[in-house]
């Protein structure tokens, strides 16, 4: 069983491809998108995606804008933001907007896997709580 379903969003194709291969090798189900719009589309089409690894600096729609939409449309999806900016402002901004955590590029693979795993677990707990709450609601209705 896969550890987690990941969507990798980065405008740099070589980075995206290599990272996808490395994560796949580590038993993550990995899909990738080259920008914010494509990421939103993939999320709409594939509801199994648990964690989005979202680059901050991208053309057209940048990471922070994409994050806002994800949080709005897909509240259960956790977002990790690798940033080449390494500025505390972008990280704080991302965290304020609901990102799970941030990473500094170039990323350490072990750190990324650790954070993705934690995000997936959090997402799982969150989903379980929602399902539990829904079940309770259904039960209550039946009673």
């Amino acid at each position, binding site marked *: 069983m896969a550890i987690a379903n990941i969507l990798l969003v980065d405008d*740099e194709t*070589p*980075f995206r491809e*290599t*990272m996808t*291969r*490395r994560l796949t*090798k580590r038993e993550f189900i990995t899909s990738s998108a080259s920008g914010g719009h494509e990421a939103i589309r993939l999320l709409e089409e594939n509801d199994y995606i648990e964690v989005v690894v979202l680059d901050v*600096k991208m053309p057209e729609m940048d990471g922070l804008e994409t994050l806002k939409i994800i949080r709005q449309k897909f509240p259960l999806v956790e977002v990790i933001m690798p940033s*080449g*900016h*390494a*500025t505390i402002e972008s990280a704080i901004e991302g965290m304020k907007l609901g990102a799970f955590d941030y990473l*500094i*590029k*170039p*990323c*350490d*693979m072990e750190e990324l896997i650790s954070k993705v795993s934690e995000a997936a677990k959090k997402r799982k707990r969150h989903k379980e709580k929602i399902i539990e709450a829904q079940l309770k609601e259904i039960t209550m209705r039946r009673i």
Partner: protein
Amino acid sequence: MNQENRLKDPYYKSLTRKMLFIVIVVSLAPLITVSGIILNRFSVSYNEKLNAHLGELVLKHSQNIDGFLLEKLNNIRFMAGAFTVEELNNAEFLRNNLAALQTEYGSVFEDLGVVNDKGIQVTYAGPFKLEKARYSDAEWFRKAIKSDYFISDVFLGLRGTPHFIITVRQMSNGKPWILRATISFVAFNSRVENLRIGKTGFAFILNSKGEFQSKPGFEVVHGKSYSFYESIKSGIKTKDGVFFSEMADDSGKENLYVASLIKNGDWLLIYQQDKSDAFSDLTHAKQIALFIILTGGIIILITALLLSKRMVARIVQADLEKELMNQQVIEIGKLASLGELAAGIAHEINNPVAIMVEEAGWVHDIMEDGQFSSKENKDEFERALAQIKTQGTRCREIIQKLLSFARKTDTCIEDVRINEVINDVISFCAQRAKFSNVVIKSKLQENLPVISLSHTEILQVLLNLMNNALDSLEKRGGNITLTSLLEGDEMVISIADDGPGIPRANLARIFDPFFTTKPVGKGTGLGLSICYGIIKKIGGEIDVRSVVDAGTTFHIRLPCRRND
């Protein structure tokens, strides 16, 4: 070009000369004009006062001598009128009268005599043996027999000593006779000599022929006596009958002459004084005035010289600062552009580095699955990949710091661990230190409290100080020691180098804006000034201690709250 070289520039030399000229002219012109006018007015006034004073003295003295002669004449006139010729022809009676006169006037009257119309002295009372003396051929007798009274010039006469006589003519039995009295020359001369002023002022009397009627106090050397007499009389004459003239004597010495006629115009009382002696006070006053003007002039000259040099030095300094400021503006603009460029490059480099690191990671992943024919090759691959990863991480850290430092507007206050900042600074400067043969050491106290300040600003301060230390050691190498420790409620950070040190003269100015000892284009003169401003803004203190050829230490004291 430094300040000394600037002062040699023709423009500044010309400026110095112009300022010097203007200051001297403006200062000296009034001094010389006012002094000249005052001196001139004083000379004129002094001349007038001196002439008036001498005129008054000579006039009084001539009146005094006239009074003396008149008094003596009246004495004889009284005697001639009061007594008959028979009584006076009595030698005993005449001696008694002479004794009475000498009792009254001392030795003024030398003798008395009665001379008949033939010019024979019929009766005589006095110290000489002049009874029956014959005066019929004497000039004085010819004049005396024709007038009621007569005062002669000084002459030697029968006795062979200078004297003059007073005669009164009387009639007896239709024949004239004369009562004659000899006036002591010594007594008369002492009255004339009485007028003495200064070192060279004295009086004497000349008759109308220019012959001396008294003995001059000093030698009077003139060519022809008569012409001298006439020269005196041809001088300026006042309404009181006083003559003023100036003449050079035969030795060329300028003399001042003041004269007045006496004895009904027969004699001329002359006062003579060396002109330099008469005007000695004026000369002295002129010398003092000249000394004051010269001293004032020299002071003005020195002041003008110092003032103009100092002012031009200030102007040179201001011009230098202006040029530096202009350079600084250009420099700041360049730095800003470079900062933006560096930030842009850093962003752009970061992604390729990330890809390289990831690719290396991917190769490593593949290798874990693959079969290598040689273990040695595998180990070498792994070592190379690990190195790529290490260097990629190092690139990441450098880019992080570069980007962090490029954030100029970030002055937000945050909790900063000062040792971390110091270590960042060391890593920033490590490469440069290595090339300059500089060893960077650190003595950092552990468990220091966090301190609230702007991370960027304190980083900038420490980087500036480190760069200065590295500049000082660039050519010779050496050691830089960074220290942090807690002293009471203050955090003390020290940056010490063993470089050439700062001369004492520059120490007081190193925190001044635009002060730099570095070559133009190398130092901006703003680094330490910015450091000072930042530390003061934080509420801390920054000071420097330096010994030439021993090194320099900067101490920063920052107020901190204990984070217990």
